[in-house]
């Protein structure tokens, strides 16, 4: 382990359980304040060469220029130098062509400030007050599509190219480097790693180990061990930096006197919890009151005590996750968790108030610390709730699609029934007009209420926000849908007029029709899923869905009518062509007859030795 301006730093790397060579490289240079993780790629041993070449170039660059340039520019230029070095080598040797490396680098400016630079999918994380924050965003093709609004986060997660890098060092002489300034607070931890760590270990486990309070060298070793236990399918490297704790002030008081004062109040905490009815909460149903108090009350007391001692939030986080996670898995309701948390909150508040009445200063510090611990618990609960929401959302979209498919099947079945009707079998092209294109045709629609209209406006706002910025046609369709759905008169003319707006001037013989129907389909999906995001009663939501669905059907009908209308001249032209072809066919037949007659007449003039025979009949 090394010490950089009071900052404690340690790193570790491992080849993993599958690979034969370690293509990762690292820089740990406390004199320069430079810490780097690189993850090489490319066949024929080129990956390790790429990461080592970039490593050397970056280190040399910083060594020669440290102190002569602002930190951001220095780090960016050093990474560019690494890219140029790998690119030149890959161009000079055919076997190394295509090699490259990712990089995540940390340049310590002073104990309060550092700069992170990165290219590719190696990452930097910051652990602050027990919470893990990502400092970098992977440079993958899919992430860039998400940034441009062309993919949603969910689509990105399922995308087949989610691991394909959009940037690395070595693909070009220059690359784009992302830089982040980090203002370091006392006790902060920064962790750099290759994808061999986060690809084989959960974020929660990484957070737990990083927030354990152990020394950086132990943390680095434990993180490597974590990735190996997760399969160790890739080389894994990590560097952990820890900012010095603040001068012995408030936090030291909380860690020592505060933690002890809290722990001495645990029996009082349990007593209040019992009085407040903790043993009656549905989550602990089946347990005796003492067991319930010990399982929930004492566990939280211990978690807060350990977090106060180590200035982290990891124990309270784990407590809340275990408590609510297990309950949700059993199908439990949120109200029980909220009830329990409120009881625990009250117990903590009473204990802290009692400490404060005896020692104002200590009580105040403890009040802040315990309030923060309870915020950490809420953060853990929020993560679980958000995950459940995501799962339900995914199911809802699936269910909506299933329902839409069912409606389509019913419509097809109805159409098939109609086609068996002799009247319906009459060819539509021979009808003088297309009935559903009559703008004055009334339909039964009483319009929509203000409440539904309001909910619909919210739905459309969300739908527009979820539409890619360049999808102009989809946005036009959304506007048309809203207008048709809000048409209080319920006249089909609105749908026809809107269809004409979006149909514009186009003919069926250029590629203008299919994108329009694709846009109509996209608009249907996006509005159906956006309805789920508004705050409204299920009944209102259903009405909005119905209104939008009806509007969509009308719009599709009107648009289809326009397409058919546009195709009528082509039908007429086809019939003209058929008539001309018939005439030509008759003329050819008549010419054939004349030719045969002439052949018969001139048969005697034909030499019998010729291949077509003595009677002049052709034999070809």
């Amino acid at each position: 382990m090394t010490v950089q301006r009071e900052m404690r730093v340690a790193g570790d790397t491992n080849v993993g359980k599958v690979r034969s060579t370690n293509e990762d490289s690292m820089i740990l240079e406390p004199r320069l304040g430079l810490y780097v993780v690189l993850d090489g790629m490319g066949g024929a041993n080129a990956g390790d060469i790429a990461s080592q070449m970039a490593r050397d170039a970056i280190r040399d660059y910083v060594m020669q220029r440290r102190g002569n340039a602002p930190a951001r520019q220095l780090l960016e230029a050093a990474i560019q130098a690494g890219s140029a070095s790998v690119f030149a080598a890959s161009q000079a040797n055919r076997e190394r062509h295509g090699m490259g490396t990712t990089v995540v680098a940390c340049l310590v400016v002073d104990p309060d400030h550092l700069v992170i630079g990165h290219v590719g999918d190696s990452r930097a994380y910051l652990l602050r007050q027990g919470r893990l924050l990502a400092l970098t965003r992977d440079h993958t093709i899919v992430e860039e599509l998400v940034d441009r609004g062309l993919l949603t986060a969910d689509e990105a997660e399922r995308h087949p190219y989610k691991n394909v890098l959009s940037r690395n060092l070595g693909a070009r002489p220059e690359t784009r480097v992302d830089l982040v300034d980090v203002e370091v607070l006392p006790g902060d931890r920064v962790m750099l790693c290759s994808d061999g760590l986060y690809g084989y270990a959960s974020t929660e486990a990484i957070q737990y180990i990083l927030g354990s309070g152990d020394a950086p060298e132990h943390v680095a070793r434990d993180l490597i061990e974590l990735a190996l236990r997760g399969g160790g399918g890739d080389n894994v490297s990590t560097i952990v930096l820890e900012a010095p704790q603040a001068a012995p002030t408030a936090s030291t008081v909380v860690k020592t006197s505060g933690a002890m004062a809290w722990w001495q109040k645990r029996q009082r905490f349990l007593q209040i919890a019992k009085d407040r009815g903790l043993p009656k909460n549905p989550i602990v149903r089946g347990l005796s009151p003492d067991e319930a108090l010990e399982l929930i009350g004492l566990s939280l007391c211990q978690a807060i005590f350990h977090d106060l001692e180590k200035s982290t939030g990891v124990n309270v986080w784990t407590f809340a996750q275990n408590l609510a996670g297990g309950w949700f898995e059993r199908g439990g309701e949120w109200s029980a968790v909220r009830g329990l948390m409120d009881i625990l909150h009250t117990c903590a508040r009473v204990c802290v108030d009692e400490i404060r009445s005896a020692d104002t200063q200590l009580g105040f510090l403890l009040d802040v610390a315990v309030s923060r611990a309870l915020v950490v618990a809420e953060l853990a609960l929020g993560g679980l709730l958000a995950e459940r929401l995501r799962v339900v959302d995914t199911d809802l979209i699936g269910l909506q699609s299933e329902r839409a498919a069912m409606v389509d099947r019913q419509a097809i079945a109805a159409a098939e029934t109609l086609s068996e009707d002799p009247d319906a079998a009459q060819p539509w092209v021979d009808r003088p007009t297309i009935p559903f294109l009559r703008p004055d045709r009334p339909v039964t629609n009483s319009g929509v209420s203000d409440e539904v209209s309001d909910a619909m406006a919210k739905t459309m706002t969300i739908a527009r926000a979820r539409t890619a910025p360049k999808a102009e046609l989809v946005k036009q369709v959304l506007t048309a849908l809203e207008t048709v759905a809000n048409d209080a008169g319920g006249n089909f003319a609105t749908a026809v007029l809107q269809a004409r707006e979006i149909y514009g001037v186009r003919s069926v013989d250029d590629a203008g029709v299919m994108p329009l129907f694709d846009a109509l389909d996209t608009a249907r999906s996006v509005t159906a899923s956006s309805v789920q995001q508004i705050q409204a009663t299920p009944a209102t939501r259903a009405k909005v869905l119905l209104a939008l669905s009806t509007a969509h059907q009308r719009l599709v009908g009107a648009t289809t009518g326009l397409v058919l209308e546009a195709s009528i001249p082509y039908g007429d032209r086809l019939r003209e062509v058929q008539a001309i072809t018939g005439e030509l066919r008759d003329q050819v037949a008549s010419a054939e007859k004349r030719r045969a007659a002439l052949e018969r007449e001139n048969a005697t003039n034909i030499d019998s030795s010729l291949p077509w025979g003595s009677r002049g009949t052709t034999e070809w």
Partner: protein
Amino acid sequence: MSTPSTRSPLATAYEVLQPRILQRLLDLRATLDPALGRMDEGTARGQINAVLDHLGTFIATGDMGQHRAFLHTFLAMRAAEAQSPAAVLAMLVAIGDTAAQVAQDEGAGTAEGAELTLLLTKVTATTARAVNDLIAEELERRLGTWNELRAQTTGAT
């Protein structure tokens, strides 16, 4: 005759401190939230200031209904930007924590600084609790919709 101000001293103290909290948040925005980190300073300033302004109102009025309404709108707007509720919660807590940190740094050694730090920490806890309740309500609504749709689909087939 002048009318005595009903604004609490802590609300006034927060108002005075708000520009410094905003500046600290702007400096740290890349570590607070990746989405905020990618924004230009003007846009980020607008978003963060909206939260800080509202916190000032909440400290002055203590109106929980208004607080919930603000959080509801904030969640919806961020959802429309494809931000998960967990990310929104983390960002709001980070803003509250930073505000408390600034209050602690700026008011070191004063009773008012200490009280404001504690108040901002408690406001953050209240905010986190309210956000979780809103997420839970939304979850319940969607589960209701899911059940309805499931019943309709099953009934129709």
